[in-house]
């Protein structure tokens, strides 16, 4: 493997300083399950890896009724192991359980999955559906980017050289909300998503009308997609199959999959529609069940 230097700063300021000095020749290292492979294959050629796992802010995991603050280096196993996250931000926990296998989940982070910016990254549709906001530190201060604007192309995102994703902030979950993430893959586990769908829905006090909805798609475009129209058509609608069908069709309409070894365009468009229907149904069911808590 390529020779590189390694530093493990203990503060965001030190990390940003190291990254700014080296610019594009430095990369932050969290779980390393993508990064180390990319360095080995030559896809990335850093001169310096900045290990960010010793920085408190990037290891933060605070979940309550007030919202969720998720440090960028927190590994998947901590996320799905948190009972509050599993209850309130179910789609995120589900994404984390399905990235790779146990060995990967014990190291890989959602922050890293997002920064890797793969079109099929399993955590990203859930982040979009749950309205996460990226908190980014750089030499000139901190900025925030809504997660659906973070990825800009396959493997590309809005981070400038010298910038570091510090955490993801999620708004508090509204009462009677449910979320779900599922993907289609040929096996039961491992694999890369052929189509991934996440949804979050909120119901009115009588649980028969949808008051808020968000649908996100993965692996059917150059980046994960916020299916704005698919969410919009559900707002104010009674919970029934007509509304769900309309949403599924609207989601399919914005999918832009490619033909590759995992599936054809036609197959992926079909599966998108099927999955949106199923995921919305489950999210609605979960929203209903929260009432009884």
């Amino acid at each position: 493997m390529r020779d590189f230097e390694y530093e493990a700063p203990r503060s965001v300021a030190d990390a940003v300083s190291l990254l700014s000095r080296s610019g594009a020749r430095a990369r932050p290292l969290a779980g390393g399950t993508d990064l180390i492979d990319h360095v080995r294959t030559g896809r990335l050629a850093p001169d310096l890896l900045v290990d960010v796992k010793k920085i408190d802010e990037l290891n933060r995991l605070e979940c309550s009724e007030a919202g969720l603050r998720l440090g960028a280096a927190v590994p998947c196993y901590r996320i799905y192991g948190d009972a509050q996250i599993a209850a309130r931000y179910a789609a995120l926990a589900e994404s984390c359980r399905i990235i790779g296998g146990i060995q990967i989940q014990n190291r890989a982070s959602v922050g890293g999955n997002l920064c890797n910016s793969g079109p099929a990254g399993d955590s990203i549709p859930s982040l979009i559906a749950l309205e996460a906001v990226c908190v980014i530190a750089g030499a000139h201060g901190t900025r925030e980017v809504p997660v659906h604007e973070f990825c800009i192309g396959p493997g590309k995102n809005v981070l400038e050289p010298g910038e570091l994703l510090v955490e993801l902030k999620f708004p508090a979950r509204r009462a009677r909300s449910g979320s779900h993430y599922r993907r289609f893959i040929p096996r039961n586990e491992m694999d890369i998503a052929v189509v991934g769908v996440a949804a979050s829905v909120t119901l009115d006090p009588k649980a028969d009308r949808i008051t808020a909805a968000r649908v996100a798609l993965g692996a059917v475009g150059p980046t994960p997609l916020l299916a704005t129209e698919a969410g919009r058509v559900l707002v104010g609608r009674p919970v029934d199959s007509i509304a769900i069908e309309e949403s599924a069709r609207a989601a399919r309409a914005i999918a832009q999959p490619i033909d590759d070894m995992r599936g054809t365009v036609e197959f992926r468009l079909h599966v998108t529609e099927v999955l949106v229907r199923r995921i919305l149904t489950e999210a609605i069911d979960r929203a209903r069940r929260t009432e009884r808590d």
Partner: protein
Amino acid sequence: MTRKRIVTARINGKEHEFLCAPRQTLLEVLRDVLGLTGTKEGCSNGNCGACTVLLDGRAVDSCLVLAVETEGCRVDTIEGLAATDRLHPLQQAFLEGAALQCGICTPGFLMSAKALLDRNDDPSEEEIRFALAGNLCRCTGYDKIVRAVQATVATTAAGASQGACE
């Protein structure tokens, strides 16, 4: 050439101090620097699990961990699984159940299975299969491996209840 680092880690219960370059993975250091060749290299990219070791008690692909990241950590490899005078129950079950052929995946499977049983002493078949999903085997078809883990659960439970009666 970058300068080498001194790393101290507790490997199979014993403190080890070793020199390594940042680019050397834990897998490379275990095999080439420390001579612990029980951990195998299969794919070098986190797909096959042949390189599975326990890092602070959790199963990881050592091909995706840099050795410098293990400073101050606990590492458990296949060499530490057996007691001095007898095999670990999982090893015994794998042998008796013919849960290996060429054996290259076996150390990884044993470490993943150990990690599972350390946390869950009565896993369902689905839980076993899911816990071992990150380990690939080209020879056996997996069935005997899963049965060996189930047999280990059964013998451990039987042994425990025997002990309780004594």
